[in-house]
């Protein structure tokens, strides 16, 4: 079941696939983390695959929308909203370049 890194089993991502998912998730990993996750994910995903045994179940749809009146409410002041930002400028959040 749990082929590890040769790509023969699509449930067992190798280091390249771990790096790809980390890129998608925008989570920086060091090389050791990549290796460790590649080792562990095969077992964990194999285990998740036992969900194949779950029968189709009719889902009750008891969900309801909860609406409120579209009225202005108190909110944080600009100062409060900026208080935790690592960098601000002229009352705005300052972020990295979008490129």
């Amino acid at each position, binding site marked *: 079941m749990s082929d590890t890194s040769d790509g023969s089993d699509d449930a067992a*991502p190798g280091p390249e696939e*771990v790096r790809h*998912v*980390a*890129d*998608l*998730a*925008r*989570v*920086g*990993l*060091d090389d050791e*983390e990549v290796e*460790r*996750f590649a080792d*562990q*994910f095969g*077992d*964990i*995903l194999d*285990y*998740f*695959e*036992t*969900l*194949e*045994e*779950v*029968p*189709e*179940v*009719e*889902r*009750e749809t008891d969900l309801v929308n*909860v609406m*409120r009146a579209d009225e202005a409410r108190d909110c*944080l002041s600009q100062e*409060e*909203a900026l*208080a*935790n*930002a*690592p*960098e601000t400028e002229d009352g705005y*959040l*300052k*972020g*990295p*370049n*979008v*490129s």
Partner: protein
Amino acid sequence: MSADHNVFITEETVEGAANGPLADRTVAVKDNISTEGVRTTCGSEMLEDYVPPYDATVVEKLKDAGATIVGKANMDEFGMGSTTETSAFGPAENPVAPGRVPGGSSGGSAAAVAAGEADLALGSDTGGSIRNPAAFCGVVGIKPTYGLVSRYGLVAYANSLEQIGPLAPTVEEAAALLDVISGPDPRDATTREEGADSDYASAATGDVEDTTVGVPTELVEGADEGVRERFEATLDDLESRGATVEEVSLPSVEHAVEAYYVIAMSEASSNLARFDGVRYGESGGFEGNWNEAFSNSREAFGEEVKRRILLGTYALSAGYHDKYYKQAQDARAWVRQDFDEAFESVDVLASPTMPTPPFAVGDSLDDPLQMYLADANTVPVNLADLPAISVPAGEVDGGLPVGVQFIAPAFGEADIIRVGSAVEN
């Protein structure tokens, strides 16, 4: 005192109103629950310096009830863990079982109560994170029905599963704290009317006459022998007080753990995208473009958090959504259906809370899958949105606490409080 067990991440006293039902009580608040002006780290380096500008609804309610908050309790980072060893601020220790973990992820909250550093505590339970440390530390913990307690101000990990709930030395005290925090909140659209004028504390009568207790065989089979013996002794005691015990079957729970982790990790991968180092959180600096800066800032997450974000991202990615996430939702519906059917013939369900006594420090960290499997008895409750309580049921191996869990139909808190109180008498 607290340095002994690393119970608190931040020790700070916040006085409540002069009068109220909790006027003479001290409360430890899990560090993922927002407190105005008091830093709230979620046990993460990412939020090491984060100071919320507002109170969670439950914190407002604590203050209104006169409680004194004595600190922000240690926890697994963002609630991800079963031992409180993944905290960026160091592990908490189990005050009643030296060398053992206090359980998690609300381990600091349970340890605070067990060590007497707070009278009461608030935790949050996504897959067992109140009940697990309650069992490991020998205290009482309640996971309320989904929607009974407001999640406004709780830093989200997996919204569809988690609830804030009480930890206390006794069932009656836990129920009294639940009375304070439960009820509808216009700021949380998932809250319901039930619990608005509750009196759960008075349900702690210890009366189990004519109560039918169902025991799901699937939740007992995997437990350690010592744990099973304590569980059987508890059932015998309930029978001697007039309860009827019968076996029931919940075949779906065999798949609850994998369904839980797929759903929780998927929700986590989305929820934790807000930590970008711009509005709050550790900044990765502004070198490179947005994506690189974003990735850099998120290196501050600990390994368990990264593991869950990646697995959640993978489970939701193109080609895998139907294979993992959709099937997990099917399993969730099946679990709910199983519980519904069981409650047609019994009043409450009972099981060991945890299949083992508290783990030795360091034991579970190397094998994440083994750690996930330890939650087998608690996660079905979160998948089905039900209320459950963990009550101390004695000790094994010369002083290791064991907990039993009682589960009721939705909004049946009074029943599990009543049955739970019978165990402690």
